């Protein structure tokens, strides 16, 4: 029985261009207080465009209805559990939205005089410090715009240090369980990628690893806990192995929600790591961004950090550009400041004890789900679960039902699916991360749903295979979308009948 959702009327809506008609307007500019300038005279006739062809023309009411209706077609954290593994879909505190919009912060121009930007610089300094404390590392940069961007920054620094020591080396080692950004980033930094196999406990196989570690290896990229939600128990031995051969260890901090206040990566030998502020530190995902990929480093990598760096001069902050060994900029200005404000607000709200409490709650929620679901789904590895649990669809596959189908049926029960088919080392993976902001009530609804679906797989597999049944859009044709891509609206093209 489905308890979390029921039928309701949901509005249809066309594309904005389909509401458009000449003369409609949603804006009003003030009157000019200076003379109007003839564009053609000022710019040259050939430089002035006739119009922006087919740009929408609609009223404010139509605009608000358009976007509001569209929003009702989305699932979101605000509607319930969003159990995507490694995405850490925790509650996005609304006070963070308020403080990010305070005029003095929101309207600060990156080039305005430093003595009129001290407030912004204090925020940056405070967050750098907090993240250094949390990770145990020596310095932090907040310049990278996202996790992958942070990986890029971290690997550039590793390369810079190796070059400084006389030999850039040739390879980066990446576990076969790693997220796709890891090898993609290593390639961008000019390294060859060598995969390291996991063992049957879902962790890096240290014996096999030691065979891979030669002096051709510049570094290892590791995720801890890894992508099956398991702490790499041999991590100190692993980092030791790499350090012995003069290589460094980069940690992908995507799963930091399992470690804050409980373990500090610096303590187990990590040299450089990124943090996803939009995961662990609650800044909103917003449908796919923005994020922020803070990077924390040990002292040995400090000289290579991207610039400029904050420097304290007598009683104020200043941006220091005198960084002879810096890798340079990875983006303009100082970082996704608006995201930094939200992350700092989150940390302030919790404090040291609160952050540790949040981590333990996250672990508890994930372990609770594992315990409740283990009888019905095949747990991928017996190792202790941290903040996310990974199952395989082995049992259900016997009835011809795969993880993707179960995920679609979960939608009918009112939830967003878990992460499907990742990591690749698990056959038909179901990767579930509840986070700490879910109540037992919500988790029990999820457990009930998953158990019910497991039963449906036995009794009525077709129901699961054809899911979802209750959404206003059923399964979409991804094949045609890839074979004959339509990537923009055009006025003369008749699309398939709009939602009926």
């Amino acid at each position, binding site marked *: 029985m489905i308890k979390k959702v029921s039928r309701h009327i949901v509005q249809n809506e066309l594309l904005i261009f389909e509401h458009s008609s000449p003369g409609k307007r949603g804006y009003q500019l003030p009157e000019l207080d200076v003379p109007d300038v003839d564009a053609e005279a000022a710019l040259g006739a050939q430089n002035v465009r006739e119009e922006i062809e087919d740009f929408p023309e609609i009223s404010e009411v139509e605009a608000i209805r358009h976007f509001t209706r569209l929003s009702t077609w989305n699932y979101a954290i605000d509607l319930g559990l969003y159990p995507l593994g490694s995405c850490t879909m925790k509650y996005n505190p609304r006070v963070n939205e308020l403080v990010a919009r305070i005029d003095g912060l929101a309207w600060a121009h990156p080039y305005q005089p430093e003595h009129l930007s001290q407030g912004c610089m204090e925020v940056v300094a405070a967050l750098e410090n907090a993240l250094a404390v949390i990770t145990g590392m020596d310095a932090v940069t907040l310049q990278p715009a996202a996790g992958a961007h942070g990986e890029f920054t971290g690997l550039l620094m590793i390369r810079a240090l190796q070059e400084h020591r006389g030999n850039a080396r040739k390879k980066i080692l990446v576990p076969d369980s790693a997220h796709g950004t890891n090898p993609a980033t290593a390639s961008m930094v000019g390294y060859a990628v060598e995969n390291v196999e996991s063992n049957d406990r879902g962790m890096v196989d240290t014996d096999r690893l030691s065979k891979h570690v030669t002096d051709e290896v510049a570094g290892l990229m590791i995720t801890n806990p890894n992508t099956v939600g398991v702490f790499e128990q041999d991590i100190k031995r692993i980092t030791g192995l790499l350090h012995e051969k003069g290589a460094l260890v980069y940690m992908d901090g995507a799963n930091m929600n399992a470690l804050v206040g409980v373990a500090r990566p610096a303590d187990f030998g990590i040299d450089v790591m990124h943090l996803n502020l939009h995961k662990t530190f609650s800044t909103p995902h917003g449908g796919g961004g923005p994020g922020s990929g803070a990077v924390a480093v040990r002292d040995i990598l400090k000289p290579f950090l991207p610039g400029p760096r904050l420097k304290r001069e007598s009683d104020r902050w200043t941006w220091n550009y005198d960084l002879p060994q810096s890798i340079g900029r990875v983006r303009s200005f100082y970082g996704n400041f608006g995201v930094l404000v939200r992350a700092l607000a989150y940390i302030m709200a919790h404090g040291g004890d609160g952050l540790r409490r949040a981590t333990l709650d996250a672990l508890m929620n994930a372990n609770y789900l594992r315990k409740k679901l283990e009888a019905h789904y095949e747990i991928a590895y017996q190792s202790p679960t941290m903040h996310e649990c990974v199952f395989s669809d082995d049992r259900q596959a016997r009835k011809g039902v795969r993880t993707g189908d179960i995920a679609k049926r979960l939608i009918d029960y009112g939830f967003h699916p878990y992460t499907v088919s990742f990591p690749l080392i698990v056959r038909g993976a179901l990767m579930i991360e509840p986070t700490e902001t879910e109540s037992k009530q919500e988790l029990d609804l999820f457990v009930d749903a998953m158990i019910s679906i497991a039963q449906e797989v036995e009794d009525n597999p077709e129901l699961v295979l054809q899911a979802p049944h209750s959404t206003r859009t059923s399964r979409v044709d*991804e*094949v045609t979308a*890839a*074979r004959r891509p339509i990537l923009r609206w055009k006025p003369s093209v008749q699309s398939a009948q709009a939602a009926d």
Partner: protein
Amino acid sequence: MTYPENYKYTKEHEWVLVEGDTGTVGITDHAQEELGDIVYVDLPKVGATFDKGQSFGSVESVKAVSDIYSPVAGEVMATNDLLTHHPEKLNEDPHGAAWLVKLKLPAAGDLSDLLSAEDYQKYIGG
């Protein structure tokens, strides 16, 4: 689907039909089934040369990409335009109309390690 007797096969699921000094290359029915709905085929330019076992292109489904490895060494004489606009043909007729490339083979070509139709079917457990 039958596996033509006069084709030779590889363990990476390609086939080659040798006629004089021309080799026509494609992927097997088993391969297209494993890949699922094919959405795009990436083929080399005419005139490019490849060693035996070298990747000369790739085949894409919605969620995966597979490299295609040349079963023989040769120079690309033609690529199959049909697949540019109709990649689905590769699912429908992988052994016939949806060949990938035609290669000019060098005089001393080595086909000895390629599988016969019977051996290939045994290999895939048919």
